């Protein structure tokens, strides 16, 4: 019994953590390159879920097989999010490149008000059911410990995304350009790189991930989408990103999972009431001992 409980919690934690991770990746990438916390990222994810919801309900009505629906919906959602994110960067953030650090932060908050309002206009104020595009049938692992197909996919996806991003950033030319831009936009320009392109690309990649995260989150959180749905996971993902070392890609994933586990075990063994407290306590403790996150390596500050 106890053992089963432990593993069930473990699974639950990893799954939720993986979703946090997917969102956190977006935060981390944008932070990494511009050093700004794009709070509106949570809304991008929300839009992803909403669009996917609309599309899939249409396609289901049209009688397509669920898997196809899922893929198409995801595709459209990613497109939508990328466009949205591109516009945000182009028109709201780019003009603020040389503005004080906190300026974009407030812009981001303004943007999320805005996007939420628009979402309410389009999709209304009340939560809408999100179609079950992935079977929630329970696969028994052993004893009474089980995991749903959907959950397996979620965990898988987050790993794939991380790997993908890592290769992109560490191995490719674009990735190198991203890292260069993140250090010094001006000098990167001198290298023949158009920093604006690189930054837009970063935002759009983050957005695509957010779209997927949104869909997974909507399905995993009791199959619903709501204009308000971005807030909580957005905040948690932000925590995750920092916990792992903001700007650090594997860090985002590790952070997300650690956070998910802290919540699950906190709720399972101590008290659900203080679930979020554990999350933050873990964070504080980690940061006290590793001031730049679990994996965030601080580069020596030369004097």
């Amino acid at each position: 019994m106890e053992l089963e409980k432990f593993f069930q919690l473990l699974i639950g934690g990893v799954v939720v953590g993986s979703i946090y991770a997917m969102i956190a990746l977006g935060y981390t990438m944008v932070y990494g390159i511009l050093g700004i916390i794009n709070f509106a990222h949570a809304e991008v994810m929300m839009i992803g879920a909403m669009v996917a919801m609309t599309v899939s309900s249409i396609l289901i009505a049209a009688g397509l097989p669920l898997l196809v629906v899922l893929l198409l919906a995801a595709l459209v959602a990613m497109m939508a999010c990328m466009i949205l994110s591109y516009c945000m960067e182009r028109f709201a953030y780019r003009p603020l490149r040389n503005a004080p650090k906190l300026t974009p932060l407030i812009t981001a908050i303004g943007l999320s008000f805005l996007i939420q309002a628009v979402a309410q206009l389009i999709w209304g104020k009340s939560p809408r059911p999100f179609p079950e595009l992935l079977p929630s049938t329970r696969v028994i692992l052993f004893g009474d410990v089980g995991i749903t197909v959907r959950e397996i996919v979620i965990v898988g996806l987050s790993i794939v995304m991380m790997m993908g991003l890592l290769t992109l950033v560490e191995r490719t030319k674009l990735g190198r350009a991203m890292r260069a831009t993140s250090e010094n936009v001006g000098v990167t320009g001198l290298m023949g790189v158009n920093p604006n392109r690189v930054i837009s690309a970063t935002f759009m990649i983050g957005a695509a991930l957010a779209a997927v995260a949104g869909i997974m989150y909507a399905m995993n959180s009791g199959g619903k989408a709501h204009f308000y749905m971005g807030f909580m996971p957005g905040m948690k993902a932000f925590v995750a990103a920092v916990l792992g070392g903001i700007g650090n890609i594997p860090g985002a994933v590790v952070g997300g999972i650690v956070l998910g586990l802290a919540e699950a075990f906190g709720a399972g063994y101590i008290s659900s009431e203080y679930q979020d407290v554990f999350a933050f306590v873990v964070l504080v403790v980690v940061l006290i001992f590793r001031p730049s996150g679990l994996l965030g390596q601080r580069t020596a500050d030369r004097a």
Partner: protein
Amino acid sequence: MTQPMLSIKGLKVAYGGIQAVRNVDMDVYEGELVTLIGSNGAGKTTTLKATTGMVPMKGGEISYRGKSIKGVPSWELLAQGLVMVPEGRGVFARMTITENLQMGAYLRNDKEGIEADIEKMFGIFPRLKERATQLAGTMSGGEQQMLAMARALMSKPKLLIMDEPTMGLSPAMTKTIFEVIRTVSSEGMTLLLVEQNAKLALQAADRGYVMSSGETIMNGKASDMLDDEEVQKAYLGE
């Protein structure tokens, strides 16, 4: 002579209220090594930044190989072979030496060529080879300067602009840099060099310009300027 490769006419640049550059006229011809000297705050760096599209110009004209490059962003200039080594090095601190060099070759697609050139740079600056995988940010000031120089060369520039490339370099290293400058120049690369070490600069250069408080106040053959007591008094400390 033919038309200049780079030609600056009546350049004006201001930062907010501050008129950093009032009136700069300068021509750099194909294959030349031109040096620009002047005291602190004269406006040299600003002039170069305006040339490479890093600060907006308030007035005047800048043309590169006949075409106006007013408002052309730096990344498009590099594509046309106009490259700058910025003041204060501007190496990518969180990237390794090798990666920094690769950034220099961003627009090139000849893998082997790039590899070869990296080796070439390691040849010129052995210290970089020793530290190939160290993060640039943790290198000494001088080491960073070498890297910045090498990185710029990686893009095979037609016109290389250098802003105080020997700042903070040991005499030995300064020699090295100037040797490099001489070689690339002799290989036919056009160079515009801002240098505080006016003596060395003028000795290496074909022609020189002098800037004071935002204006080019004189120019001429480098050798002549070396003997000009105005210059000697003001910039050679003799």
